[in-house]
């Protein structure tokens, strides 16, 4: 068996193991979906009219259109917290030591986690997206190409945040610590352009909202889903995603290859 097919086969085995965990214990993943869904409902049904006026819209449905892309990105941020927790839990399990003493592809443990996490992110986005559609979100002006690009962006963003979360999970001594250190991944959207446009924020705060990965990613997704154009946000978002992926990848593999305690 060639090195590549060995790597694919072992990674696939690890992926199936992680998906089995997720299927056996869905509560962790489902709990993490509560935050974006609750915020979506809260901002639409409770604050919706005021928020809509704030962004210069006519009624609540304009605000639904504005907020949903941000909520979808936030869903990814929330889902990867679960990844950080499960990686940290896994690293404390004796079975990881067993994997390390077996003649398997070395990276397969991490690859299994990463692919599993991206698939879970996509499933989560589909679920939250379904809620959004149910309360009236429509993406009628987008072309098929824009739809495809939106999906690609979501997957790429999920990959980037997943690698960061895996790194956090590897660096944490236990599941609680991993959950805490990954919290910013669901909090960052709150200070992005997810809920209100960055240029309506106080001047001193605008750089904080602008120079972080969520804002360009959300702006791009919004432009793609609503068919309103994305400007140069697309490139900025891709640059963030690639940068975070490389950073998270190097961080995670360095931690994994270190001698265990």
């Amino acid at each position, binding site marked *: *068996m060639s090195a590549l097919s*060995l790597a694919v*086969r*072992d990674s696939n*085995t690890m992926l*199936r*193991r992680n998906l*089995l*965990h997720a299927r*056996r*214990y869905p509560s962790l993943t489902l709990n993490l979906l509560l935050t974006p869904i609750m915020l979506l409902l809260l901002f639409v049904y409770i604050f919706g009219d005021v928020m809509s006026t704030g962004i210069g819209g006519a009624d609540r449905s304009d605000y639904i259109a504005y907020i949903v892309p941000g909520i979808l990105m936030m869903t990814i941020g929330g889902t990867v917290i679960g990844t950080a927790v499960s990686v940290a839990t896994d690293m404390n*399990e*004796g*079975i990881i*030591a*067993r*994997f*390390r*003493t*077996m*003649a*398997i592809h070395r990276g397969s443990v991490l690859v299994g986690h990463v692919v599993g996490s991206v698939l879970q992110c996509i499933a989560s986005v589909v679920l939250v997206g379904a809620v959004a559609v149910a309360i009236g979100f429509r993406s009628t002006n987008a072309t098929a190409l824009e739809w495809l690009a939106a999906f690609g962006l979501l997957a790429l963003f999920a990959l980037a945040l997943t690698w960061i979360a895996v790194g956090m999970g590897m660096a944490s001594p236990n599941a609680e610590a991993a959950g805490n250190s990954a919290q910013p991944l669901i909090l960052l959207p709150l200070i992005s352009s997810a809920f209100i446009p960055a240029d309506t924020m106080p001047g001193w705060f605008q750089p904080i909202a602008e120079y972080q990965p969520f804002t360009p990613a959300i702006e791009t997704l919004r432009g793609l889903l609503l068919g309103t154009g994305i400007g140069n946000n697309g490139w900025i978002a891709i640059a963030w995603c690639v940068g975070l992926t490389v950073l998270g990848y190097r961080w995670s593999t360095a931690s994994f290859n270190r*001698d*265990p305690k």
Partner: protein
Amino acid sequence: MTTTTSHSLAIAAKGLRKSYGDKTVLDGIDLAVPAGTIFSLLGPNGAGKTTVVKILSTLITADAGDLHVGGHDLAAAPQAVRAAIGVTGQFSAVDGLITGEENMLLMADLHHLSRSEGRRTAAELLERFDLVEAAKKPVSTYSGGMKRRLDIAMTLVGGPRIIFLDEPTTGLDPRSRHTMWGIIRELVSGGVTVFLTTQYLDEADELADRIAVLSDGKIAAEGSADELKRLVPGGHVRLRFTDPAAYQSAAVALREVTRDDEALALQIPSDGSQRELRAILDWLDSTGIEADELTVHTPDLDDVFFALTGPTTVPTQPNQPKENVR
């Protein structure tokens, strides 16, 4: 060691060193384990037994040493070593979130067995380790003994020729311990080499072909159980009395004995041979001493262990409460 013999060695280590910061855990250890034998590394807690296993099983790297496992150099070809070994660590290396059967199939997949072969191997091992009933239950619901059995069963999936067992019976009840011993013997009868660490002396005595005593990062002694026992004195005949007066007069009459006033027992040095026993009995008869109980104590690995593993331990003989009734 010559090159001709190193071929038949399953594990060969020369000058193995490992330290964490300025704490030296292993200070130049030599090991030679012939293929198809049970080798036991014995030592008190914290002696570095687990570190040896972790290094030889490629989990962590050594600071120095010429190390070969299954004929492969640990530093140069760790993947080849991994393909030859199976490891059951001190803490159970099972996936608690999935079932026992799923754990076994996971191992089969990682050993690249075909689907049918994997199922067959898993079923066979589950049967052999008496886990068929529990196979469909999550491992988190297993008892300690069941987890251990599953752990070993998983280690055996790929048919490893060299197996490391790090304290395999720690925390097991006596019945499970004996089951485990049976399993280990069975493995070796099939030609597998077993490297076993334990803190139970009777376990090493029972199982191991050769034993090394690890103390303070060094091998304090190495040999068969009998060879090690010959290293330390400690054989004696123990006479126990129920009547304090009889005890007193016997103690006075025999003089050259060790007294244990609390237990009303006397100890006469002896190598346990028939000739010496007869001599002692004759001597007792001639002095008119009648003990209520006579036991022969041959040195056991406890004596070796206490004698070899450092100054902080209990003095060896004659105050050892341990008794071997024959």
